């Protein structure tokens, strides 16, 4: 007989599961990918039993994507969306930084602009869309105006608080070394607020995508938002999914890019925070 002590009946099972959970925890992608696969398989199976008017299966969506890419509908809409999107995002970032800097640096501008900015920020900008269309039209100008009205605020607010939060001790370095006001601004205040500004830009990217779709829903002439409205109205459910997925991918890609840029530019700040 073996000299090993008798094992409890559950001991073998306990030992095999003991390594499974830590292994899964150490390899997060295993569970992530499995979950996505299970989700798609279930979706495909469930959608095949449903009316195509209500639900499209992943394979049908893929086929629809192929069709509207080949016939040029999707590329055309994508380009139609991208141009006002890029312009609006650029205006939001540049304009937001300039406005934020101005109100943070000049008290009289802050006092003058404060009530207007607060009022605009408090009103859900979607409520202003009909007015903006009335004034700026359904074309690029209107779309860009709607987009900027939604995306500019986080940039203004973050730039403002970034500048206001620059530590007095940093400013004193500049003063002690005889920096001019201009040098203190360009060499201390601005670099010190970069992490704040970048966080504002990241928020602006997400809001700009919302702004773009909202603008296209209301103008409904072209673009990815226009596609969504048109496909929905004609019950082309499989095609309807395609622009939604494209917008999702665009959002994830752009946000990842900005976060990467943010990490690069604000590296000193995270590391400094870890230290103290």
């Amino acid at each position: 007989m073996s000299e090993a002590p008798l094992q409890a009946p559950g001991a073998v099972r306990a030992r095999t599961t003991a390594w499974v959970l830590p292994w899964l925890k150490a390899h997060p992608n295993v569970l992530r990918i499995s979950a996505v696969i299970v989700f798609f398989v279930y979706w495909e199976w469930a959608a095949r039993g449903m009316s195509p008017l209500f639900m499209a299966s992943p394979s049908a969506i893929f086929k629809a994507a192929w069709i509207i890419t080949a016939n040029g509908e999707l590329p055309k809409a994508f380009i139609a969306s991208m141009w006002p999107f890029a312009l609006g995002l650029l205006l939001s970032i540049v304009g937001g930084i300039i406005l934020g800097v101005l109100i943070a640096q000049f008290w009289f501008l802050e006092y003058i602009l404060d009530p207007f900015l607060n009022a605009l920020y408090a009103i859900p900008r979607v409520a202003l869309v009909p007015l903006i269309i009335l004034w700026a039209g359904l074309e690029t100008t209107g779309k860009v105006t709607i987009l900027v009205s939604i995306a500019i605020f986080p940039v203004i607010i973050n730039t403002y608080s970034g500048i206001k939060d620059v530590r007095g001790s940093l400013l004193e370095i500049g003063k002690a070394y005889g920096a001019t006001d201009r040098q203190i601004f360009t060499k201390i205040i601005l670099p010190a607020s970069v992490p704040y500004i970048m966080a504002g830009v990241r928020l602006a990217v997400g809001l700009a995508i919302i702004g773009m779709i909202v603008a296209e829903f209301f103008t409904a002439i072209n673009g990815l938002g226009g596609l969504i409205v048109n496909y929905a109205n004609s019950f082309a459910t499989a095609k309807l999914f395609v622009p939604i997925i494209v917008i999702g991918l665009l959002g994830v890609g752009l946000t990842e890019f900005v976060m990467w840029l943010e990490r690069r530019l604000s590296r000193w700040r995270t590391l400094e925070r870890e230290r103290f």
Partner: protein
Amino acid sequence: MAPAAAARLTALACDHETEALGVRPMVAVDRVTKRFKVRARPGEPDTMVALDGVSFDVREGELVSLLGASGCGKTTLLRILAGLVPLDDGSVVVQGVPVKAPRRDLCMVFQNFGLLPWRSVMDNICFPLELDGMGRAKREQVAARYIEIVGLDGFERHYPHELSGGMQQRVGIARALTRKPLVLLMDEPFAALDAQTRETLQEDFLRIWKDLRTTVIFVTHSIDEALVMSDRVMIFTPRPGRLRRIVESPLGVDRVDRDVRALPEFARYRQEIRQMLRETP
């Protein structure tokens, strides 16, 4: 000249040494007074006298420390010397020119190092020269020399958060030296460091000072540090901030490269100064 007259002249020269010899002091602090507004209960004075008629001279190449407990006005005086704070009465003159605002020839070393965290060691050290409008190649060439002097070679591309406290203050010192200042103003520069690092930096800084012969005004609250570092110790007492005594260091320039803490004079002076700081004025 008669010997008696010569003797008298020597005595005079000792009293008003610098003036009588016709040599202007590097720094002349004359009856400097600074008051701060404070919140007070009714009937109590609403001003606090931070500095009350403080006068002293600093010779060229001298290392002088301002010693006192917190609240004695020593840091305020240094900030006045740096031109960061206006004074209420009296005057501060550096090489014949009154200090009214920050000057390029008066450079500051800060207690918490005062580095710009987004700049590398090299770019931090170049900062003053960059403000002066010097080109990149030129200023990096100047900075390289001071990087070597403070012993930071190889760390040019590091960022402040990657360095220990001692190394960060070496950056602070190198930055202040790049402008070849007339007077180096140091605000408790080693107070934020641990004891071992502090001693190393004190020794290294003394060596640098001996080589460059820069005039240094050094604020500290540590009697030991004041004795180890300085030619003369200005002893301040608080409320109101007054210069109580000026003590010549017994250790002379020989203190560089020597462990002066072991000398018998060191203990005696430390005891005396501690007594002076304790006495109520």
